């Protein structure tokens, strides 16, 4: 039997770029920018997301904090968090392309104010417009198969289905849908974005074959965010290794892993 005892290096590719880390980290909600930067370091993330909706981007009023995030050396993935219409999202995407000099955009179109659930219809429409304008769109979507197929139809090359609504920490709420997604869409990188609260949930998603994890609140709101960032990084690695190594099939009955021949017969069943 031949096997490689390690994971293949750099096999995580998004829009033609390869990464070693499968962990994407958000930069909001930390008690201080310094704590955010320390968390990025411990997370080993190579991609960080950032929002600019409320920072009056036209005036570059957020430069101080954006420069501080840039110093982390990570690829920046600006998002359209807080945009409720296609037009808002498209405008903000164009503004962030100009400010951060990147075509990458984490596309969010908020459908519900309270739980920030994505608006699937607006998301497809905005994706199509942005892709035609040359953007590389990473859409934050629900776990609906048809929605995901439509996003692929309009040219998205990455999908980012939720585990649960943003900030809830509920984990993978609909495993059936997520499994279906993975089974039906095999060749497109899929990142579980939002809703994870515990590293074990990230491991589970990676074991299911998802390609990466994006989260923010679970790290930012921990008592010790850098340590939680490291915990998630390790959990994501563990899940990826497990997926690559191949999980055993669950069985109904226990089967001893050492032979029972030497045991007295009254211990056998």
């Amino acid at each position: 039997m031949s096997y490689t005892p390690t994971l293949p290096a750099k096999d995580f590719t998004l829009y033609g770029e390869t990464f070693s880390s499968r962990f994407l980290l958000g930069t909001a909600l930390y008690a201080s920018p310094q704590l955010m930067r320390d968390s990025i370091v411990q997370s080993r993330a190579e991609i960080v997301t950032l929002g600019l909706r409320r920072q009056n981007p036209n005036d570059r009023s957020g430069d101080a904090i954006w420069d501080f995030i840039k110093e982390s050396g990570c690829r920046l993935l600006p998002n359209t968090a807080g945009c409720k219409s296609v037009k808002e999202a498209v405008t903000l995407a164009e503004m962030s392309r100009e400010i951060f000099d990147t075509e990458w955009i984490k596309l969010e179109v908020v459908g519900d104010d309270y739980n920030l659930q994505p608006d699937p219809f607006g998301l497809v429409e905005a994706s199509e417009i942005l892709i035609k304008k040359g953007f590389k769109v990473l859409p934050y979507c629900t776990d609906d198969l048809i929605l995901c197929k439509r996003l692929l139809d309009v040219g998205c090359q990455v999908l980012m289905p939720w585990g649960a609504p943003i900030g809830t920490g509920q984990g993978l709420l609909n495993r059936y849908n997520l499994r279906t997604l993975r089974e039906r869409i095999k060749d497109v990188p899929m990142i579980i974005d939002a809703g994870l609260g515990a590293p074990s949930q990230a491991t589970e998603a990676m074991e299911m074959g998802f390609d990466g994890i994006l989260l923010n609140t679970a790290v930012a709101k921990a008592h010790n965010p850098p340590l939680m960032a490291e915990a998630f990084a390790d959990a994501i690695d563990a899940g990826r290794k497990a997926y690559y190594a191949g999980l055993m099939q669950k069985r109904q009955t226990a089967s001893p892993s050492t032979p029972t021949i030497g045991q007295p017969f009254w211990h056998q069943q």
Partner: protein
Amino acid sequence: MTHSIPNNIAIAGAGLLGRLLAWQLLQANCKVTLFEAGSFTPDTPQTNRAAAFTAAGMIAPLSEAVVSDEGVYRMGQFALQQWPQWLSKLQMQTAPLFFQHGSLVIAHPQDISELDQFERELQFVIPQCKTYRRVNQQQIQELEPDLNPNFSQGLFLAEEGHVHNRELLRVLLSEISLLGAKLREFTPVEVAANKIITEASEEEFDLVIDCRGMGARDQHPQLRGVRGETLHVETKEIQLQRPVRLMHPRYQLYIVPKLNNRFIIGATQIESEDRSPVTLQSSLELSSALYTLSPAFAEARIIEMDVNLRPAYMDNLPKVIIQDGLITANGLFRHGYLLAPAMVENVLAHIFQKEEKVFNELLNC
């Protein structure tokens, strides 16, 4: 070190720190010149006035420890002792300016998990904390009868307090003027060791203290501004005894009772150095939070909408930097009235070369 204690001292910036330091130094018989880029009595919002005018003036060591750390809690507890002592010495004070009636933290029934999270973090930061308790619907009503009776759970933080900050700033100015400070408003300055540089001249001093807040932004690359927006309303229909904090998944807002039936509701916290007027989104968040605290706020009059920048270092903690002939005190972020007493005592300990420099390990790094 054989430095003599300085006598002729310049203070750059007449915000809270500048006024408190001037007042303390004058009482110690120093000669003080206080420089201010704008007016000493700014009354129009959205000019570059000190953050101290925009602040709500809460002295909330527990609540703020939850979003920072244990050091902030310790300095905040010091503030709770220091404010009443200081204020008792203010001769120009006509009405009480400091209150220690505690504060109330509440959440709507659908957001109770935010309250649990707050308590969990509080216990983590201050493990042996005994000065707060859970309160139920009835106890909330007893504490604040005018609040919406729908609030079923809350936390009462008994030790917290608040000051009437704008009145305090005004009284401090009268006081330092009475004590003979040289007051120089509309005088933007640059600072250097033993030197104040104005547009017109360079002036020598035994010591320069730089507490210009955002005014020092160009000289301190590590300093940034964090936008905050507040709403001031007036109504006679509601009375609150203490600050009330509303926990919500996306924002945490507080309302603080002020003189003359006024209330401040604040504050947004946006990583932006934008001083332009309050956005519609923020005003919606602030006013709807206020409305849900009590529907009677619907008929309150909006007196003012204020915007300012909190001066902050990247760790959001304040710093006192000691150099020959120059002391820099800045970065109070959202903790002006909470941490200024600790900072002032630390600066004074350095100036008067005291053996024990209070909070040096927290402020002087």
